């Protein structure tokens, strides 16, 4: 079933490499998405309300905002509360005591959900258009950027996945072709004695499946190794961001997915290639 240990090993490594790229991207992106969900709490939009609005009106506005499907929470802070927390902040109590009137406006602090995070700009514009809102302050620009990048990575992962699929088909198809060419005379004899194409193709299909499976397993091994070496620095970063998130070392799901995809693609590529080249052998 194998050419030689060296060329077989090279084929398996090529398959593993091809499978590894989209897998890494996907894993990377999954981690980012998890992080985003966690940091979501830090994302805020603060709506500073106009002066002429009463507390009860503002509270009503705040409750209405809760019904939006882009917003997780909306907290109303009256101008008295704002002044109080301002004065409690370091060193401001004296200044506040000296003030004649409350200069601070009332505000609503909004926490958008992940969907809101993606369309933060539009959300901010919509909120700004509300008559009760004087000023919109958008926090966490970086988080928004991260969300956008995450979407881009997903797109890249999918495109790469498609290219990888083609590459794998080519690698395995080529390997199967070589094996078939090597056994040309044999195949001729089997055809003359009444062997069908599926009878002849069967061992080559197992070859493709096996190569694909090995490639998938090697890919998951490589991915685990990469995660291992990145683990400590990354966990350090997560810690600094006060996140309890840690990088998983080896998810069983990843191993199974890679092994299975490898085997499946290997088998399918072998089918296409085997029947094509067996057909081409004339008798």
């Amino acid at each position, binding site marked *: 079933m194998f050419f030689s240990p060296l060329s077989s090993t090279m084929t398996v490594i090529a398959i593993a490499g091809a499978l590894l790229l989209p897998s890494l991207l996907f894993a990377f992106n999954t981690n980012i998405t998890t992080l985003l969900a966690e940091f979501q709490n830090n994302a805020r939009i603060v709506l500073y309300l106009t002066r002429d609005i009463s507390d009860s009106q503002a509270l009503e506005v705040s409750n209405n905002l809760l019904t939006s499907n882009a917003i997780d929470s909306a907290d109303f802070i009256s101008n008295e509360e704002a002044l109080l927390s301002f004065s409690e902040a370091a060193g401001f109590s004296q200044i506040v005591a000296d003030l004649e009137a409350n200069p601070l406006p009332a505000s609503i602090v909004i926490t958008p959900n992940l969907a809101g995070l993606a369309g933060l700009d539009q959300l901010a514009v919509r909120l700004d258009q509300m008559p009760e809102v004087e000023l919109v302050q958008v926090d966490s620009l970086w988080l928004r950027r991260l969300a956008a990048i995450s979407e881009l990575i997903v797109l890249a992962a999918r495109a790469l996945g498609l290219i990888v699929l083609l590459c794998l088909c080519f690698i395995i198809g080529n390997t199967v072709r070589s094996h078939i060419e090597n056994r040309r*005379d044999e195949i001729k*004899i*089997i*055809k*003359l*004695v*009444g062997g*069908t194409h599926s*009878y002849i193709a069967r061992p080559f299909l197992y070859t493709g499946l096996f190569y694909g499976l090995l490639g998938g397993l090697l890919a998951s091994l490589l991915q685990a190794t990469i995660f291992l070496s990145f683990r400590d620095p990354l966990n350090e970063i997560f810690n600094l961001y006060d996140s309890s998130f840690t990088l998983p070392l080896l998810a069983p799901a990843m191993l199974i997915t890679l092994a299975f995809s490898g085997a499946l693609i290997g088998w399918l590529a072998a089918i296409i290639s085997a029947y094509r080249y067996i057909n081409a052998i004339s008798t």
Partner: protein
Amino acid sequence: MISFDKVSKQYISGQCALASVSFEIDKGQMAFVTGHSGAGKSTLLKLVLATEKCSSGHVVVNGTDLNHIRKREIPFFRRRIGMVFQDHQLLNDRSVADNVALPLDISGFSRSDARRRVRAALDKVGLLGKEKQFPAALSGGEQQRVGIARAVVNRPSIILADEPTGNLDPELSMETMEVFEQFKNVGVSLLIASHDISLINRMDCRTLILNGGALIGDTGHGELS
């Protein structure tokens, strides 16, 4: 049975291999095909095996008109024919037993059933002791006999042979012919291409004579001169 009706074969290169050949071989009939090299003997066999398609005329084998056979039907058609090749065509990476078992494996026989039949076939050609050996370790004559065993193991209704006694001494040649006779007697049609004139004369059997692609003689139970 085999039926040729005004069959001609012309290759794309323009070479005319057969010209309007007609004959019939019934069940339980054995016939030689002879003629000089290039007379069309191998082409004749190829047409029966559906390796080539005739340019005109009809070839009917085992009730199947080969002008109309579909590509995916051909393997099943060939399983009812036992072919003995000129250069034995054995698989070198398999043992003698596995080589002989090939037609049975293709047809889906279980290992144990196959083993019995393989032994019987090897016994018929006198090679029972060599089951486990590989073709490379056998003499030319022994390899040829393995090829014959493979051709008969699946009890085909037609046996085609292309120079089956090429590598065999006179005694072995006669023994091989005896095996073929046994099959003839149970109703198998045999068509043997050979230019071993002495053997043909000894056998005193129906002989089709080809010359330049044309059938110029059909001795024995045939119809014409």
